Structures are given as structure tokens and as C-alpha cells.
């Protein structure tokens, strides 16, 4: 601890604190351009100069640490003159086209000059210009370098946080231009974090170009509806149209970062294809009706049905309140235990995963995980599925000594931050984890057991395709670490065999006295919330014991046999997500009465008897629980189009038609009831996430849910996933794409602009041996489906693995899968 004097005020701070941070702690504001807490300090802009007594020259406070006894002046006459001087120089070549610039009104340079600047310039020379016209860097980024203040935040964020390294500085001095390699069109993550950090209007978003001024926008502080990272964002609208989404420095776990989906994918809300009135099927055609007619039609058709013959599937993109009411409607009003929240994962796998990752034990913050000595990331393509977690891992692992171990069949951007990469076979998470367990046990085992274990180890090594050396390095690192974090992804749900290995490893490490934290990473915004609200056939709210029912698969089976009389689907497109060619479609057509509540006319909705128009996240209030177990508030900004309603109101209206007292009647009251019914949510509050962290401590641990009372979930053992035995060369895996996730991203114009048609990704070596190049059109041929798509190659992906994201309309990947069949194999053939 050192004691320093700032503007005469004595304060004590930690050693090595920057003068800037110390001054901010003491309550003095120092203007900055190039300083950003998460980025490497470079001290390039000189806005933050302060005077230190005894030193002749002013010092940049953002890179100078405090020394004991320093006396610092942050606001003396010299400092003020220096600031004005710095700004005068910045403006010497600045374009000064504020009226045209999209940043006008929220520009840090404008504000700074207004506050500290010389209000008159002395430079009469002609200004230096990089270029005349703004140039487009990518489908979402447009650049004007004439406005640059050379703070290098864009370059640093791209390298240090995003890890993409596509930006750099061309030239020197005031002719230095941060841009892509020779201003070429970029093929990058398109996350726009460079736009977010740029203090001036150099990097601008193309979709928002010349649309509005910041003062026209109404905003609401909400949560991203795509993956379960739960990024805080502000969405803004003008005249009923959602204009943009942006992150806020020092707010939420993501701070200033978002991914492409989050920053550019919110415009699905504006899509003109939204359903805006209730429809009822009459004489084979869906016809518009009033809400009263629709609800009474539903009531007529559901009354007198046996609860066991009704099913309900709700999307994990609904709010906790909606999901809670949904299961309450199903269980208490309609008397049905058949509830599910996913059409992709089996309920047993979910239960095992919940148990193995310890979701019932309360929330785990990603920042807690990143404090561990070793982080093992397995079962997820983190860089594509949860990009912001990828940023966090990259940033923190670069700033402290720790091991990052990544196990995945596919190469990912984060590999460059990993100490060890285990490139294992598809669906062999269990073999990898079991090898680790055996390896960790090695020392303790008596020689007698050795032979047997070796045989087992060999079998597992063979199954995983990972070398014994790598496994033993990982084992050594695990053994040497006192705290270990496991980040486990959705592949465990696709190939549930790995769940038992995960549970085993966790227990073993714990029994060795190590601190083990397991964090699930999920791909739907409120997937964890859906499970915790009891939208699952095996457990009720708070993982409580409940009457077991059928999951999606069971319901479709029953439907196929004609035993399902009614099905209520909220926001889920079962028909196009469920594996198998036409199975779900046929099954749905046999359901006696199908109610679909959605934003868009999905494949499922087209088959419905009643279609109810629901609302998007921007049109409702409520809470989402992210993968960490952080319950966060989403806020209404817009009104649902036409006669569409918030889903909570629709669910309640249906409930009320049976029982007038069905409720509670308002989302906040529903949350109150959840707090009472689900003990782990007792402390969830609507005001949690609306705090701003001035010190950039992003983690708001207070928002994490607590442990459940007695979670009724068990780790089960699952059969190994089988792989089809056709002779085809590639094993097909699926998941989310960086630009797309689920169905709603396919309704976002901007995301479609980034990637519209389906792509299949294989390793570079495989492509080379097939004589194919990245970007070529290929046919992907499976046993029961084939489609044409574009080939992408990735360096370092396991040979023989092909990946197609699960949401492309032109190549519905679910059709390659066969219900009950193993993991499909495909061939990739060049189209002529």
C-alpha cells in the first residue's frame, strides 16, 4: 500500500495502481482517449497528463504507477493548458465534419473539446486527408480515417479481446491510419467491437449509417436474446424501429464487447414478416380472428381433454416469468406433465447435464472460473457459440499465469490462447474425460490394477483419438493445480455419454481437495432459466420433484401413434429443428389440436390450428437467467406489431379462460411468486443488473442465483453415441454459427447480409486431399439428404469432421440426422 496526495487529498492505494485509477478513486476525473481498463496501456494520446510535484515534465497518468509520497496535481493551470494543447493538435488535421459524422452527439472528442479544449484553433494550414470518401471495411463496418485520434483502441480490442488481429496501423505520426491490411475488405468476426471502442466517428456501423442522431433514440437497458452468455446491451429505437444495440463500458459481464449476433442481429424485431394477428384454421385455412375468438376456440378444444394427452413445448428464449406461468398452466390448469423446452436435447441428457454441472448448486460466475489455476474448456466451440466468453478467457488468460486447456474436435480462434489443445474425435468427450480420470488415478493405483487400467486407458485413448502424451500433460497440469474450472458446453447434451465422465472428473478432483467450479455454456438466452423454472418433463421449478412426463421426443412419438390430443408450442420451431427428415412434420400433423405461439410463420406454425402472435425480447419485460445462473432484467422498448401480445399475457389469457384466478397478473408479481416458490431465486431482484461499475469490476455476483433446496436431478449413464456405418468420409457435427443461432437470426437482415447460405466447414488438409478450396460450392451428401452449400476450411480441425450450423433454411441440417440413428456421415463432393 502506498500513500499519495492527489490535489492535496491524501489517499492510500495498492502498489502499482495507475495514477489515473487512484485519481478516479479519489473522485477526480481525468480525461482520456487511449486508456481503457481492459486493454494494454500504451499512453499514446497524452490527454491524461498530470503534474507530479518535483518533476518538470507532465506525466501520462494512464501508464504511470503511483509511488509512495507522490504529490499529484490533476487540474493545475499547466495541466489545463497541456490538455487544450493536445486537443488543438488533434484538431489540426481533424476533418471537423461533425454535421455529417454519425458519431456527432455522442463523440468523445466533441465532449472533450467542449470541456477542455481551445475554442479557437491556430492552424491555418490545409488539413491532411487520408481519403475523400468513407470506405467500407465489411458488411457492417464503414471507416473514415480523417477523424482518427490515433488512440489505437480499435487495434488493441481486435487483438487483445477479440483475438482476430485484422486491424493494424499503416504509416507513421499523424499519417498513421489504423485500418485493415491495406484497407482491404475484412473477413473477420464482424462483432463491431472496434466500432464500440472508437471514441470518434472513424469506425461506424454500416446498418446504422445516416439513420439517426443519438438524441432521437429511445433506449432500454436489456439482455441479448441470442446465446446464454447474457450480455448486457442497450437497444435503441427511433419511431418504432429498432436502430442499434450497443454495449456499455463497465456494465454487465461483457463490458464494451458484444458479438456479431448481439450487436447486429437485433433487427429481426423489425422484420415485416412478423405475425401481427391471431389466426385460426377454418376449412383448412388460417384466418384472422380476434383474440377473444382465438382464446375461446382454444378453451373449447382443450376442455375435457385428459391432461396426459396434452403437451407443451416452450422456447428457451421466453422470460423466466413466461416460462414459469407456462409450466403452471400446463401442470396446474391443464393437468399435463408433458413439458419441454427444447426440441434438440433429450430430457435425460438435460437432467444429467444439470446434475453434472451442478446447476442446482447455484450460479457460477465466469470470472470465478477465470481465477482458477487451470481452465478446461470442453464440449463447446466457444469462439462461435459464446463469443463473449471467448473474449473473457482470452483477455484474462493473457494477463495472468494460468493454464487454458481446450478439448474440441474443431479448431477455434481461442486455441491460440490455450496452453494445450486436445483435438479429439466427435462425440468422444467421455473418452477424453475418462482418460483424464484414469491418468489422475494412476499414482494411487496398486500395480495389480495397472494392467486393467492400461487396457481401459488404451481403449479410451483410441476412442478419443488424443495422444497419450497430451493426456499425461493435461493430467500433470490438473494434478498441479489447486483450483480448476471446467467450462462444459452443449456437446454434452448432443452426445450425453460425456456427462458421466464429466461428473466423474469433477468428483475425483474434488476428492483430491481441489477447488472445482463447473460452468455450463449454453446457446439459448434463457435455457438455464427454462430448466430452473421447471419447463422440463423430469423436474419442476427449482429442480423440484414432480410427476414425470414426456419430453419433446416422447410427445412426438405419442403424436405419431395418434395419442396426443393437443400440443401448445410457444416460440419453438419443432418441425424444422427436430432431427429426422419428416418425422416431426408428420407427427405434428397427427396432433388433434396444435396451438403455436410465435413471432414468425414457422414451419410448425403453418401446421397449427391456432396461431398466436407473440412478442420479441425488445417488446417485453422480465428476467433471463444466463448460463452462469445470473438472473438479469430485460426491459421493454417497443410495442409488439399489430395485435401481437407479450407472451406472458397470452399464456395468462389462456389460463384465465379456464380459471379466472390464474395469474399473477403482472410480470413483477410473477417474479414475486417465483421468489417464493423457487428458493434459489429468493434474492433475485429487478434492480440487480442496473448498476454501473465505475471501477470496471464487471462481475455482479449478487445477481447469481443461489443453490436449490434439494435438486431432484441425477447424473445418469448414457450409451455411447453411435456413428452411422456408411462408408462416407466425414462425421457430421452441428451447433451454432458465429453469425447465426436458432431461428431468429435468420430473420435479421444484417446477419443474413453477413452470411445467408449454408456453409460446411472441414479441415484444410481434408479439403486439400479432396482437391477443394475454401469458398467453393460443394454437395454434402448424407444417407438420407443432400444439399448444396459453400465450403469453408479451417486450419487445425480434426480430419474427417464436417460441421454445418443448425439453422440454415437452404440446408436444414436436421434432415441429415435420422431419428434414433447415430451421428450421420456425409460425403463432400465438388459441384460441377
Amino acid at each position, binding site marked *: 500500500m502506498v500513500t499519495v496526495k492527489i490535489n492535496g487529498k491524501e489517499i492510500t492505494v495498492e502498489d502499482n495502481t495507475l495514477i489515473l485509477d487512484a485519481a478516479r478513486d479519489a473522485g477526480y476525473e481525468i480525461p482520456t482517449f487511449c486508456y481503457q481498463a481492459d486493454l494494454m496501456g500504451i499512453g499514446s494520446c497524452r490527454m491524461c497528463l498530470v503534474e507530479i510535484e518535483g518533476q518538470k515534465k507532465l506525466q501520462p497518468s494512464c501508464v504511470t504507477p503511483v509511488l509512495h509520497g507522490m504529490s499529484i496535481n490533476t487540474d493545475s493551470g499547466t495541466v489545463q493548458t497541456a490538455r487544450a494543447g493536445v486537443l488543438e493538435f488533434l484538431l489540426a488535421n481533424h476533418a471537423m465534419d*461533425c*454535421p*455529417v459524422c454519425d458519431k*456527432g*452527439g455522442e463523440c468523445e472528442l466533441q465532449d472533450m473539446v467542449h470541456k477542455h479544449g481551445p475554442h479557437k484553433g491556430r492552424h491555418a494550414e490545409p488539413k491532411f486527408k487520408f481519403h475523400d470518401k468513407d470506405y467500407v471495411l465489411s458488411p457492417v463496418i464503414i471507416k473514415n480515417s480523417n477523424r482518427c485520434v490515433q488512440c489505437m483502441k480499435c487495434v488493441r480490442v481486435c487483438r487483445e479481446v477479440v483475438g482476430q488481429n485484422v486491424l493494424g496501423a499503416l504509416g507513421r505520426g499523424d499519417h498513421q491510419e489504423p485500418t485493415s491490411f491495406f484497407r482491404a475488405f475484412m473477413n473477420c468476426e464482424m462483432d463491431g467491437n472496434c466500432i464500440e471502442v472508437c471514441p470518434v466517428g472513424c469506425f461506424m456501423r454500416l446498418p446504422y449509417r*445516416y*439513420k*439517426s442522431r443519438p438524441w*432521437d433514440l429511445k433506449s432500454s437497458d436489456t439482455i441479448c436474446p441470442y446465446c446464454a452468455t447474457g450480455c448486457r446491451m442497450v437497444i435503441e429505437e427511433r419511431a418504432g424501429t429498432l436502430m442499434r444495440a450497443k454495449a456499455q463500458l463497465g456494465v454487465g459481464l461483457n463490458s464494451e464487447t458484444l458479438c456479431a449476433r448481439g450487436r447486429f442481429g437485433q433487427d429481426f424485431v423489425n422484420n415485416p414478416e412478423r405475425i401481427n394477428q391471431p389466426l385460426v384454421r377454418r376449412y383448412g385455412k388460417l384466418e384472422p380472428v380476434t383474440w377473444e375468438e382465438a382464446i375461446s376456440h382454444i378453451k373449447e378444444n382443450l376442455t375435457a381433454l385428459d391432461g396426459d394427452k396434452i403437451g407443451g413445448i416452450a422456447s428457451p428464449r421466453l422470460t423466466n416469468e413466461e416460462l414459469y406461468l407456462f409450466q403452471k398452466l400446463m401442470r396446474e390448469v391443464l393437468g399435463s406433465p408433458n413439458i419441454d423446452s427444447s426440441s434438440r436435447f433429450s430430457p435425460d441428457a438435460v437432467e444429467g447435464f444439470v446434475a453434472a454441472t451442478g446447476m442446482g448448486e447455484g450460479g457460477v460466475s465466469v470470472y470465478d472460473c477465470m481465477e482458477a489455476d487451470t481452465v478446461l474448456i470442453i464440449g463447446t466451440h466457444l469462439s462461435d457459440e459464446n463469443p463473449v466468453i471467448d473474449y473473457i478467457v482470452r483477455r484474462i488468460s493473457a494477463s495472468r499465469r494460468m493454464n487454458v486447456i481446450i478439448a474440441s474436435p474443431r479448431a477455434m480462434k481461442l486455441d491460440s490462447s490455450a496452453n494445450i489443445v486436445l483435438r479429439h474425435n466427435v462425440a468422444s468427450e467421455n473418452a477424453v474425460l475418462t482418460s483424464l480420470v484414469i491418468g489422475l488415478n494412476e499414482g494411487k493405483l496398486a500395480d495389480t490394477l495397472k494392467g486393467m487400467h492400461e487396457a481401459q486407458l488404451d481403449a479410451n485413448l483410441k476412442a478419443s483419438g488424443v495422444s497419450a502424451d497430451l493426456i499425461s500433460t493435461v493430467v500433470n497440469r490438473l494434478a498441479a493445480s489447486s483450483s480448476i474450472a471446467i467450462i462444459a458446453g452443449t456437446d454434452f447434451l448432443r452426445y450425453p455419454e460425456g456427462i458421466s465422465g464429466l461428473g466423474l472428473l469433477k468428483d475425483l478432483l474434488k476428492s483430491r481437495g481441489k477447488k472445482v467450479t463447473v460452468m455450463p455454456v449454453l446457446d439459448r438466452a434463457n435455457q438455464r432459466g427454462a430448466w430452473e423454472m421447471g419447463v422440463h418433463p423430469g423436474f419442476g421449478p427449482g429442480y423440484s420433484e414432480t410427476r414425470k412426463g414426456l419430453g419433446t421426443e416422447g410427445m412426438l412419438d405419442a403424436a405419431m401413434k395418434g395419442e396426443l390430443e393437443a400440443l401448445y408450442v410457444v416460440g419453438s420451431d419443432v418441425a424444422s429443428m427436430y432431427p429426422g427428415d419428416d418425422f416431426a412434420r408428420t407427427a405434428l400433423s397427427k396432433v388433434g389440436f396444435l396451438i403455436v405461439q410465435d413471432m414468425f410463420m414457422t414451419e410448425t406454425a403453418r401446421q397449427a390450428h391456432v396461431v398466436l402472435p407473440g412478442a420479441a425480447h425488445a417488446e417485453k419485460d422480465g428476467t433471463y437467467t444466463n448460463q452462469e445462473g445470473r438472473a438479469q432484467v430485460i426491459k421493454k422498448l417497443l410495442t409488439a406489431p399489430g395485435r401481437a401480445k407479450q407472451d406472458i399475457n397470452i399464456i395468462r389469457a389462456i389460463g384465465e379462460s379456464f380459471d379466472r384466478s390464474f395469474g399473477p397478473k403482472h410480470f413483477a408479481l410473477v417474479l414475486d411468486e417465483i421468489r417464493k416458490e423457487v428458493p434459489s431465486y429468493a434474492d433475485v431482484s429487478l434492480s440487480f443488473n442496473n448498476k454501473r461499475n465505475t471501477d470496471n469490476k464487471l462481475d455482479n455476483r449478487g445477481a447469481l442465483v443461489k443453490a436449490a433446496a434439494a435438486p431432484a436431478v441425477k447424473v445418469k449413464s448414457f450409451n455411447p453415441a453411435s456413428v452411422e456405418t456408411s462408408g462416407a468420409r466425414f462425421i457430421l457435427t452441428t451447433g451454432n454459427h458465429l453469425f447465426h443461432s436458432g431461428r431468429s437470426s435468420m430473420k435479421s437482415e444484417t446477419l443474413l447480409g453477413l452470411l445467408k447460405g449454408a456453409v460446411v466447414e472441414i479441415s484444410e488438409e481434408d479439403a486439400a486431399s479432396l482437391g477443394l478450396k475454401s469458398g467453393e460450392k460443394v454437395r454434402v451428401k448424407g444417407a438420407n439428404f443432400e444439399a448444396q452449400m459453400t465450403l469453408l476450411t479451417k486450419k487445425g480441425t480434426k480430419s474427417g469432421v464436417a460441421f454445418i450450423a443448425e439453422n440454415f433454411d437452404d440446408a436444414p441440417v436436421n434432415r441429415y440426422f435420422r431419428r434414433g440413428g447415430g451421428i450421420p456421415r456425409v460425403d463432400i463432393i465438388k459441384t460441377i
Partner: protein
Amino acid sequence: MSRKGFDLFDLIKKVLFTDFVKGLTVTLGYNISKSITMRYPDEEKWIPYRRFRGLHTLNRDENGRELCVACELCSKACPTGCITVIPEENDSGRGIADRVAKVWTVNLVRCLFCGYCEDACPTRALRLGREYELACADYSCTLMSRDQLLVPQPVPESIPGGYVVKSKLERTPQGIKVTVDLSKFKKRSI
């Protein structure tokens, strides 16, 4: 200090009708002086000075490009919030920059002709002109849009104003219209 009772001076004033004559000279003086009544709109119309704040105009540069860059500063400065600007990108050379107004409307019913908007305009695209005949019998004239405001007003900038010109009132099926002949003007003191 006035004495009570008889006042000789007062009596003389009353006998000679002094006050009456005084009043009458004013009346008769106006009778023979030049009339200040303007035969507006049938014969004459007042052309205000340049500083007058009338109907908004949107201007072009010497090459005919719109000066407005849709920066929205006018709408931000407006105390009544009666200007709506929606920008768009247009590279065709319509404006001086690639940012032009897609929508530019002013709500004249709300406008108080304070001129803040013209002060705020960085490109001098927006000026309050000298058009003041803004009444109409329906709502058609309450919202003025970009297209209407880009049409040059009848009184050009080159005319200093501050005088009366010859005018004519025309009744057309579309309504009434005052046409002026700017070449015939008389100075008038007001």
C-alpha cells in the same frame, strides 16, 4: 396650487374652443397627409427586411446541390420540437455531402419563428425566409416538407426589402394567391 372658484384662463379656452381645434387639426392633418393604409393584397404588399423571420427555406449551393446535410441540429435546437429530419445516404451528388435529408419537415402550426434553427444550421442550408402568407383553410399548409421548402421563395436574397411593391390578388380554384411585381416598389416609412 389651484385656487377654488373662478379661473379666467379656463373660461377663455372654453370660449375659443381651443381643445376642439387642437383635436381637429390632428384629424384634418391626417385627412390631407399621405395614407398609410396598405391596399394589401389587392394592390400592394409589404416586402420585409432580410432579417425578417418568415417561412423556412432550404437552400442550394451555386452548383445546385442541397446544402442540408441532415445533421438534425435544427431539430435539436428547436424549442418546440417542430422540425423532423430523417437522414439518408445519397452519393449521387444531390447534396454537398453524401448525407442528405430523406425527410425534412417543419410543423408551422407549432413554429414560433424564433430562428434558433437557422442559427444552429452549420451549412446555412436553412434560413427563415420572407414569406409570411401562411394561412390556409385546411391542414394542407401546416406541415411543410423538403420539396416545398427547396423551391426558392418569390423574394430573392438580393432584394433588401423594407418597402411596398405592387401586387395582385388572384382567385383560383385552388385558393387565393398574391402575386407581386418586385420591380415596382415604393419606399415607405413605418
